[in-house]
């Protein structure tokens, strides 16, 4: 008798909630408010993107036509083509891609290894070193900007190079080496945050899994890449996405280390300036088209990674 009563009672309460006017009004008014809020925020976020899309396909004539609001009357690809050429897109995009890709791959390796050690392999002083990780997050990059710059300008290991060649170190500026060095040692853009994310995720994976792998004869490293890494795919996707995108967007390190190599993030702010003398409005169009070209790869990447990314939140990746 007892098991049958409870579902019936619950169903009855549900029924009351559906029919009773106060419950009904409360429920649906909240749904309406929520819908308005969500749609409103989505609009605020998407508005600049729609704006760029609309502007980039407009013809010169449409700018001055007040009847054209969003959908261009004379659809054209000219603006995009001009921006494409002004950016010399294939070359600069490739440079951006190479830097972001290489540093992402290295950052994932160095950060996940360090995070695994911090999460699971207890050694003397690991707590202190983790405090060091937090410290790297807190110190502004500007504080060590000049020394980093001079470091790579006169790159030297313990004065060995000066000893053998007589010169004051190598000049590593204007090459990919600074990016490689700083990401392989886990000092790249927001590496501290990535170590933090990985560590929290590894801590959330049950210890039993790891222990079982040892019993089955895994070495420590094997258990890392066979057990921990496959379980941490959402965290890896999150870190890859963030690392790639932040490196792609970054113009601070890029303008610090590179002088003659053009990447998108340094070329973008200057490429439309030449148009602004003759026709400021058209320059604005070209600028928007260029920005559209700049964010297109990120949006593509995000569409691809979005499912895993949201899943990593679902599986509470950040909080162990």
């Amino acid at each position, binding site marked *: 008798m007892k098991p049958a009563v409870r579902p019936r009672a619950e169903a009855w309460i549900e029924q009351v909630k559906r029919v009773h006017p106060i419950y009904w009004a409360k429920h649906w008014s909240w749904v309406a408010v929520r819908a308005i809020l969500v749609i409103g925020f989505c609009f605020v976020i998407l508005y600049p993107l729609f704006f760029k899309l609309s502007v980039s396909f407009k013809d010169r004539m449409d700018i001055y036509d007040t009847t054209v609001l969003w959908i261009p009357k004379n659809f054209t690809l000219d603006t995009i083509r001009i921006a494409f050429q002004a950016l010399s897109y294939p070359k600069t995009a490739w440079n951006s891609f190479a830097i972001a890709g290489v540093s992402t791959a290295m950052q994932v390796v160095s950060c996940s290894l360090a995070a695994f050690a911090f999460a699971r392999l207890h050694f003397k002083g690991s707590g202190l070193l983790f405090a060091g990780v937090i410290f790297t997050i807190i110190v502004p990059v500007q504080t060590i900007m*000049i020394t980093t710059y001079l470091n790579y300008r006169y790159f030297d290991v313990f004065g060995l190079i000066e000893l053998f060649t007589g010169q004051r170190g190598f000049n590593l500026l204007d090459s990919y080496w600074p990016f490689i060095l700083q990401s392989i040692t886990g000092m790249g853009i927001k590496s501290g945050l990535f170590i933090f994310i990985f560590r929290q995720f590894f801590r959330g994976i049950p210890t039993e899994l790891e222990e079982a792998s040892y019993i089955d004869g895994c070495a420590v490293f094997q258990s890392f890449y066979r057990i921990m890494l496959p379980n941490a795919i959402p965290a890896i996707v999150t870190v890859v996405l963030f690392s790639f995108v932040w490196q792609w967007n970054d113009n601070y390190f890029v303008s610090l280390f590179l002088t003659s190599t053009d990447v998108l993030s340094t070329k973008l702010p200057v490429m439309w300036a030449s148009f602004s003398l003759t026709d400021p409005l058209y320059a604005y169009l070209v600028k928007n088209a260029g920005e559209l070209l700049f964010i297109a790869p990120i949006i593509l990447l995000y569409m691809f990674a979005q499912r895993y990314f949201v899943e990593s939140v679902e599986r509470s990746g950040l909080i162990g």
Partner: protein
Amino acid sequence: MKRARMTLRRRKAALGMLFVSPWLLGFLFLFVVPLYESFLYSLNSLTLGKGGFDTSYEGFAYYRELFRTHPTFNRVLTEAITDIVINVPSITIFSLFVATLINQKFRGRVFARAIFFLPVLLAAPVLSLENSTQMNAIASSITGTSGEGGFLFTSFELQRMLLEAGAGQGIISYITGSVDRIYEIISSSGVQILIFLAALQSISPSLYEAAKIEGTTGYEAFWKITFPMISPILLTNVVYTIVDAYSRNALSQMITDTAFQSLNFSLSAAMAWVYFLVVAAILLITTTLISRKVFYYD
């Protein structure tokens, strides 16, 4: 077998040190040493020569110059601090609000989430997604909309409503100011929303069930369960928000410009150190204040 067999614990400890070593190398040579050197540079004058650079000791002269004779430093520093103080509460509250919003079950939730995290990816300093006033003027003439249309929000009505409701002048200007900067707030709260969302997901549903049986309303459940349970994460988020403010303020730009346009390395290093110490002080104050109220479950 010649090699002494280590216990698993010792082997793990040794491997742990091995795994950490790349990071440790970077930490020492690309972080600690540069940090120390940059402090030295702020005390020495630096002249670039042919084969490198020469230094001569100046003491705290550059710091004195900053506070006493530098034309804009004091103003820019105060602005940066006020910016942090103003932005941190609004970003934290907003991201908590959004996280609870998209944590609920409704149709199109996945889609809404995907959009809400978009600003994290588009928060590049080179992108002018939130158009500046000059560009807005050009843009409005391009799109043909008049001034109040388009993306320009006017909080005038809100301001009047709040005034009639009898709210204080300071609070009103804070709220309307936040509404006016809504895009800036949204675009800088992406990571915080992510962290809050993860925290919300990790709260055990049985707590809510028990509370529901006892007859709590949703409002009570939020303040009695949700809020205490995520309070440790609140601390994390406040720290992250303060740290994240580095990337987008005038002071960072000024530090870079002083170094690479006026080529005054020492002055720039001094600026950076003052900045760092100020931010560290803010972090210290906020963390001690918040961690008093933080509730730890275990």
